[in-house]
């Protein structure tokens, strides 16, 4: 009997092409090491593995926001609301909020599939939250609740990409969800380089240049991805920069895909988050002028709820026919997980002044954000103190992306073992110190430059140890490979 085995030769080649360095080679190596017998780990490393590769705050000790978890627990087990003892275990406003949410769910059934865009009452709350944030109205029918922001990004790529001739403008460096998703859907990534010397600034001249180059190669550029605050680069766009970007998309007929998941992670007093929708509306542009998608997630911010899988996209400026198609795609998976939906509504509508939980909520939020700001600065300073390393400040997001001027001999040594030079450095770093970072080649960089992405998430008390181990390793590495 003939069989058609699934091999690397016969697998979907788009699956082969797509790479996702955040959980790539270095991380897998780290996981292998962590599974080795203890004695070997002790011999190999000074102490335990420190995962600085992924924006996964709660895996490194960050605590969830109490009020959010209270509401979620009550919604997961509504029978609790019928017990008198529950009042002794939960805050009054969490009970009230859970009751309000359950009232908006038919049959109070949190285990039922919801509307494919998400529960209407929750979308109403999210739209109200967007309006309060931006000062411009938001329509609940424009909201599609998803299992994190990533599925929403995939949906848009699916709609936009017909063939390899369709291109999507992406920042370099970029969060590799975009490159992976474009590869998976068979499109072409059209890179635009952020300017490292100018704090990872986004220049319109560069956008225009790359657009023209792509067009001359016969590529239909369909959309522009902007990550603000940036990942891995952490820059927060200035408002006039955003206006230029909006005009660019409007003039060129590009869909603006605004990844705004780090909107609550801003660490510098001289910058502020403005949503692209707010900027566009402030310029007098409405539904007819610009097609805009904003992605938000519950995984980042000060809530850091990665494992809950919650998020949404707000879709404006599309025809009813396209809206129907987006709905259709959402309906094939029926709906996103309800707990994640509820969390998204809490994130966009947290406790307010006067609520019983407001003070403790605010204290928790403030503690997390100020700690992140401190860690960002400590690590930035540490990287900048290393020989041959320069590091732009993290204005926002959760990462640092230092530039290493690798010595020629290190580059040659890397080539000799068939490894990218920054991966070579990262592997040595892991083996020597247990620190896991992601090589810059996983995000894209100007050819001939080398970086790695390191999160600012290890707990504050671990930072000194990280800095000293890193410093020691780096000195040893440079001594070994410098002329």
């Amino acid at each position, binding site marked *: 009997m003939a069989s058609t085995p699934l091999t690397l030769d016969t697998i979907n080649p788009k699956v082969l092409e797509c790479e996702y360095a955040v959980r790539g080679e270095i991380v897998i190596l780290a996981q292998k090491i962590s599974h080795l017998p203890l004695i070997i780990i002790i011999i190999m490393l000074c102490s335990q593995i420190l995962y600085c590769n992924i924006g996964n705050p*709660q895996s490194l000790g960050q605590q969830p926001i109490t009020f959010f978890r209270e509401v979620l627990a009550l919604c997961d087990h509504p029978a609790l609301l019928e017990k008198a003892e529950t009042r002794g275990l939960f805050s009054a406003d969490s009970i009230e909020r859970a009751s309000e949410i359950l009232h908006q769910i038919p049959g109070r059934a949190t285990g039922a599939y919801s509307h494919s865009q998400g529960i209407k009452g929750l979308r109403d709350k999210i739209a109200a939250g967007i309006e309060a944030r931006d000062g411009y109205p938001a329509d609940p029918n424009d909201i599609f609740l998803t299992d994190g922001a990533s599925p929403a990004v995939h949906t848009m790529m699916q709609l936009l990409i017909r063939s390899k001739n369709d291109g999507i403008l992406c920042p370099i460096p970029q969060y590799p969800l975009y490159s992976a998703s474009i590869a998976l859907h068979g499109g072409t990534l059209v890179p635009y380089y952020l300017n490292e010397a100018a704090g990872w600034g986004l220049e319109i001249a560069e956008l225009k240049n790359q657009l023209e180059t792509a067009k001359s190669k016969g590529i239909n550029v369909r959309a522009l991805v902007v990550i603000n605050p940036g990942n891995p680069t952490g820059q927060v766009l200035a408002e006039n920069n955003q206006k230029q970007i909006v005009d660019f998309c409007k003039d060129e007929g590009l869909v603006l895909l605004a990844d705004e998941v780090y909107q609550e992670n801003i660490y510098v007093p001289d910058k502020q988050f403005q949503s692209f929708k707010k900027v566009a509306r402030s310029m007098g542009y409405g539904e007819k002028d610009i097609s805009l998608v904003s992605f938000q997630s519950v995984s980042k911010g000060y809530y850091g709820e990665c494992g809950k899988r919650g998020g949404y996209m707000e879709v404006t400026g599309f025809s009813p026919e396209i809206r129907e198609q987006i709905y259709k795609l959402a309906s094939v998976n029926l709906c996103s997980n309800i707990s994640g939906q509820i969390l998204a509504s809490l994130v966009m509508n947290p406790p307010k002044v006067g609520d019983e939980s407001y003070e403790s909520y605010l204290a928790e939020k403030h503690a997390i954000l100020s700690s992140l700001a401190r860690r960002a600065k400590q690590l930035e300073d540490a990287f900048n103190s290393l020989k041959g390393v320069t590091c732009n400040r993290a204005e926002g997001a959760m990462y640092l992306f230092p530039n290493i001027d690798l010595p020629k001999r290190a580059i040659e040594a890397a080539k000799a073992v068939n490894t990218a030079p920054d991966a070579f450095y990262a592997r040595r770093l892991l083996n020597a110190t247990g620190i896991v970072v992601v090589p810059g080649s996983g995000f894209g960089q100007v050819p001939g430059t080398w970086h790695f992405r390191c999160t600012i998430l290890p707990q504050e008390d671990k930072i000194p140890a990280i800095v000293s181990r890193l410093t020691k390793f780096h000195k040893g590495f440079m001594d070994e490979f410098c002329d």
Partner: protein
Amino acid sequence: MSSKSLDYENLNENVKKCQYAVRGELYLRASELQKEGKKIIFTNVGNPHALGQKPLTFPRQVVALCQAPFLLDDPNVGLVFPADAIARAKHYLSMTSGGLGAYSDSRGLPGIRKEVAEFIERRDGYPSDPELIFLTGGASIGVMQILNTIIRGAHDGILVPVPQYPLYSATISLLGGSFVPYYLEETANWGLDIGNLRQSVTQARSQGITISVLNVALAYLVYLCICDKVRAMVIINPGNPTGQCLSEANLKKDTITPYIEILFNAHPFMLLQWRRYTRFSISLSPNVSGQIFMGLMVSPPKPGDISYERYVRESKGILESLRRRARIMTDGFNSCRNVVCNFTEGAMYSFPQIRLPPKAIEAAKSAGKVADVFYCLKLLEATGISTVPGSGFGQKEGVFHLRTTILPAEEDMPAIMASFNKFNDEFMEQYETRGLFKDVKRNGETSTCCLHKLASPEKQLASPPSLIPTFM
């Protein structure tokens, strides 16, 4: 301003082709009517809790505790949660590094994958490797991920039963693959249809493909594999929408090059695993609450556990009720005029065949609707019962069905079946006798009289099925 960058004309063709009737036209119309104040009974999707089924208590207790671990430190937690739920919450939390809020391994928490593998081994009597388990945010995602790995282009076919749950047709469309149907035979309790396969082989022969045949079914499938048309075969067991449970003999015969076998024989195996891992890792991890529910599903309370009695009572109660409702519904449909219905052996659906009179089919055409869509819309408007037309799942040409669920509450069932029966009678009355009323002039006055009623329903002639079913 230049024209909109994304409009219907320049939309990905695969998205246009993709259809998913379960939340398609009927559901959208039902939602509209609901907004206008009409009472709707949603039987379009297998959504038990939406129709009043209560969640099991123990899993909800455990997940609530995992959701809010600070409860575990509260001295009063034992007043509200039983000890075994508390212990189990601690057990699952210890498997995580950071609780429910941290991304897990992209394949899911190793501890839970181990529980799943152990469950499979207990159930089947054969070992199962946790490294081959990928936990997903619902089964649909798993289906899509696997098909994404297999389908390279239009020359890659996936064998899918017809009727089928339209996740398969929708996903194959989206991925640009080919849907290769194998028809289930309604009169043989939805078993594999040999007649159809014979026809397909004849068709293949006419295209110049030579096949020496001993076993027609096997040969057809082999032919497809040789020509690289078919890369995988979908089997839905118990069936959706058809509800049949395949026998062991059936499975042995029908399962040719199942996907899992392919994976085991593939070279190089580990690199292939790595590639599938990459594809899964882009979505980072499935939601952790869902993973814990899966753990609870495969290792429920055991005899002797505090929550055991209640758990058994709740789950048995639900399953026995489903069995009774399956019976009520099947019998109810079979007692309706022009309706025949196979018994729901498993799953959650009833898939009655409605023998639509020619006049009804004509009326549907004039209204620009597929015949079963026409019937289901009328059913919805008359009774509020929201079903999914059989064309959404695939069926032989000229044969019509609708899918409903067996999920409405038991006490509501008799009224629902009576409501359906009444509507169906009126519909059949209208379309069987329409045109047979003659205006009779008597004493200068015109009156109408009915010439005759049809003695028996007209037989629907099942025309040879086309290889590519159209899903509306």
